[in-house]
């Protein structure tokens, strides 16, 4: 087995008296694509955001690349710079051009010069077929273009892991494929990915493993084929019957 990149142990998260996560544990290995599926409110997005501490777990541990994120004195910013994240609503910076959206983190976090950062950004945009959008403002792009720019913005930091939080859920149906294609190419290139998704087709095609979450727990966990074709738990069966 290859190196473990993410290790989650007994994760709990509560907001006041509401328990969103009730003991979630899983590992993600290098070059592995893990899809997290489940009904809304099952805690899958919260679990994902615990992986880069955008949400702070109430208890439990998250280890990324050998560093315990929840330990004392951890350089959280330094670790986040190595973990890319793509959001449901893109969250591009609307006051910056596409190019500046890509260069802001390399310049601010990595300390690259403007020229170095722009060179990398242009290269990244070319890879994703977005070179012609470099000077545009996010508001002038379609949702699909915005999400691909958001992926490029994360990738230009050369992350070791990519987290996708329902990356296609806010898109019009005809724009979903373009984004999924980028994600599939990324998966094929060997990127370690954790994807919270409703796209069962993507899970079946790209995921090495699928995690099914329900009510803050992992209900079922296995390879995409076994989980999606032969669900054992009644909850997963009823979930799949609704989404497929």
């Amino acid at each position: 087995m290859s190196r473990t990149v993410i290790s989650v142990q007994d994760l709990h998260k509560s907001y006041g008296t509401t328990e969103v996560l009730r003991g979630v544990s899983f590992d993600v290995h290098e070059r592995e694509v893990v899809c997290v599926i489940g009904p809304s409110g099952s805690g899958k997005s919260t679990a994902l955001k615990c992986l880069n501490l955008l949400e702070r777990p109430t208890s439990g541990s998250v280890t990324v690349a050998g560093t315990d994120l929840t330990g004392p004195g951890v350089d959280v910013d330094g670790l986040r710079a190595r973990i890319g994240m793509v959001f449901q609503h893109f969250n591009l910076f609307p006051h910056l051009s596409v190019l500046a959206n890509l260069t802001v983190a390399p310049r601010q976090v990595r300390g690259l010069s403007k020229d170095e950062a722009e060179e990398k950004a242009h290269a990244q945009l070319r890879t994703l077929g977005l070179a012609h959008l470099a000077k545009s403002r996010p508001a002038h792009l379609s949702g699909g273009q915005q999400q691909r720019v958001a992926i490029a913005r994360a990738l230009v930091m050369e992350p070791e892991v990519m987290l996708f939080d329902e990356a296609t859920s806010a898109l019009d149906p005809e724009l979903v494929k373009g984004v999924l294609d980028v994600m599939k190419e990324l998966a094929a290139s060997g990127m370690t990915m954790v994807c919270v998704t409703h796209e069962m087709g993507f899970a079946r095609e790209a995921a090495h493993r699928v995690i099914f979450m329900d009510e803050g727990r992992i209900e079922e966990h296995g390879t995409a084929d076994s989980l999606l074709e032969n669900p054992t738990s009644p909850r997963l069966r009823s979930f799949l019957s609704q989404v497929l």
Partner: protein
Amino acid sequence: MDDFLHTFFDWHEIGSVLPTLLTEGLGNTLLIAALAIVLGLVVGMLLAMLLLSTSRWVRLPARIYVDVFRGIPAIVTVSLVGLGLPASGVQPFGRSPLGYAVIAVGMISAAYCAEIFRSGIQSVPQGQMQAGRSLGMSYLRTMRVIIVPQGVRNVLPALTGQFIVDIKESSLVYLLGLSVGQRELYFIAQERQAATYNSSSLVAAALCYLVITIPLTYVVNWLDRRLRDGPSTRRPLPATAVAEELPTSTATFAPHDDLSKEAKA
């Protein structure tokens, strides 16, 4: 009617006071106002950062400052700072009243700017902070590079209003007494009015204030539109882009203009 016109619009009177207003008064008014605005912006932004803290003990002093300085009449604050401070032996500006006026007007302005900035920053969607943090930027860096520029843009019209208030409040320096050379618009006009019992000099000063404040509104509105649209959209697109690019002409921007007008209305 002749009396009325003579009292307010005596052209001879206006003509004789105008050179002093323009050569001495305008410059001093602008100097006090500009420095007070800068002070208000800098201190106001610092206060806004404190107001946004999650710790109530950080918020509390800023909250008290804002409530106190918004709650006191400007004339009282100017008197306290300009007359009280020097009398108590605190004389950072010696006997020149201009410095005390800048401090007083700037401190009031800071209280209002703090609330304006706070509301602007809070209007930036939460996802922007998450995106900045997820890229490895610290809270303060994300604030500086991502959140504050957007927040300030959202409140430019409100800030213009505050700048106008600061320009007008600079006239309160007359309370502190000014010698020749330090006089600002209102002081010159009311000195003249006291000597001649004719209000035309005050009308002349009023016109001078309008000459500053009205263009300011339009300059900021122009800046506002420019920042929203972004200078980058002006650049010609490479030929390959035209097919996929949305139209960049006025049609795309019309809704923006409508929205900003709505916001100001």
